[in-house]
C-alpha cells in the first residue's frame, strides 16, 4: 500500500492539471511574459512548473487562443502573450463551464 500522503498529492496534482489552462487564460487579459505569469500565479497560490508553462503558452498560441509579440522591457527582449479575440471568447465560455462544474461538484460533495 502506498503512503496515503503520496496518494493524495498524486491525485491533487491530477486535479490541478485540469485547471491549469483556465488559470493561465485568466491572467492574460493583459499581456504577460512567461516568467511574470509564473509569479502572478504563484502569488495566487497556483504552482506551475516553468517547464510546463512555456510549451503550454506556445501550444495555446498555435491554437489561436493566444497571441504574442516580442517587446523590450527593462532593456531585455521578452515575449509577451495575451488573449486573442478567439481567446477572449474561449475564456468566457470556459469560465461559465467552470462555475457550472463548481456548483455541481459542491452539490456532490457537500
Amino acid at each position: 500500500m502506498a503512503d496515503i500522503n503520496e496518494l493524495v498529492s498524486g491525485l491533487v496534482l491530477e486535479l490541478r492539471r485540469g485547471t491549469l489552462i483556465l488559470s493561465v487564460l485568466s491572467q492574460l487579459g493583459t499581456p504577460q511574459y512567461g516568467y511574470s505569469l509564473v509569479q502572478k500565479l504563484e502569488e495566487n497560490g497556483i504552482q506551475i512548473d516553468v517547464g510546463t508553462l512555456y510549451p503550454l503558452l506556445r501550444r495555446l498560441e498555435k491554437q489561436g487562443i493566444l497571441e504574442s509579440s516580442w517587446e523590450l522591457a527593462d532593456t531585455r527582449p521578452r515575449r509577451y502573450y495575451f488573449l486573442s479575440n478567439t481567446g477572449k471568447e474561449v475564456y468566457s465560455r470556459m469560465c461559465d463551464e467552470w462555475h457550472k462544474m463548481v456548483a455541481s461538484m459542491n452539490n456532490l460533495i457537500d
Partner: protein
Amino acid sequence: MEMIDRYVYAVTKRLPQKQREDIEKELRSLIDDMIMERCGINPPRDKDIEIILTELGNPSKLAAKYRDDNNYLIGPEHFDSYIFILRIVMAAVAFGIAVGKIVEFFVDPPALVIQAIGEFFAAIISGAFQGFAWVTIIFALSERYAYHKISGLNLNKWSVSDLPEIPQKEQRIKPSEAIVGIVFSVLFIIIFNFSSQLIGVYNFVGGKLVSITPIFSEQDLKNFLPLIIVIFCLSILKECLKLIIGKWNLTLGIATAAINIISLIFCIVLFTSPTIWNSNFVNELNALTIVPQDLDISLDVLWQNVTNGFILLIAFGLILDSVVSIIKGIKYSIK
C-alpha cells in the same frame, strides 16, 4: 554562463529546425528572468545557475513538451498488429532459412562442421534482422504518412453498428492455417532463390545420397525467378487477407478466387515454357544404374506425362480452392 549554453543546446537540438531559434530566444529570456529573481542585481554564481537549471528539469523532457508531434516510431494503436506481423515474419524467415540450410548440409556436407554451424546461425540471425527491419520500416512509414488519415476517420466515426458479428465456428479462419501457408511460401521463395538445384529426384544408393537430378533447368529458372517470386507473393497476399479478415465472407471468397486465377495464369506461362524443365532429366536418370530396368513404360513417356500432368494438377488445385472459397463466402454471407 557556459552551463546555460549547454542547457539551451541540449533542449533545442531535440527540436525541429524551424522552431529552434525562437524557442532558444524565449528560453534564454526565461533563464535571465529566473536569475534576476534569484540574485537580483548581483552577478549569479555557478551554484545559482545550477539550481535554476535543475528547476527547469531534464532538457529532453522539456524538449518533448515543446514538440507536440508523435515522437514514436510505431504508435500504441498500431503496436499490437506490429508485434503480430513481426512474429509471423520472424517465424517464417527463421524456419525457411533453417530448413533450407539443413537440406543444404545433407546434400552438400560441409568440410568443417563447426564452420557450418556458425554459418547456420549467422544466416538465421541476419535473415531475422532483415525481416525485423522491413516490417519496422513499413509500419513506421504507415504510422507517419498514412495511418492517422485513414484510421483517424474510422475511430471518430465509430458506431455500435460497426461491431463485427461473432463468426460461426466453421466460418472462422484459424490464424495458424494462414501462418503455415505464409511460412511455406517464404520457404519456397528461399529455396527457388538460393538452392533451386535441390528441387529434384534424390538418388540414393545403399541409403547414401549419391546425386540429385534437378527437375528444372537451372538457367531457365533464373530467368523466370521474378515470376516465381510473384506467384509466391500472391499466395502470401492471399494468406494475409485470410489473417486480416479472419472469417469467410463473400469479399474474401472473391478475392481468393481472383488471386488464384492470376496465379494460375502466371503458372501456365511458367510451366508451358518448353525450356523450364530440365531437358536432360531422362538422360541423367538413365545414366544411373539405380533406375529399375523392368518399367512398363519408358522414362521418356513418363516424364512427358509428369510435366503435362503437373500443370493440370496446379490448375486443378487452384480452381478447386477458388470454388471452395466462393462457396464458403456465399454460404456465410447468407443468413
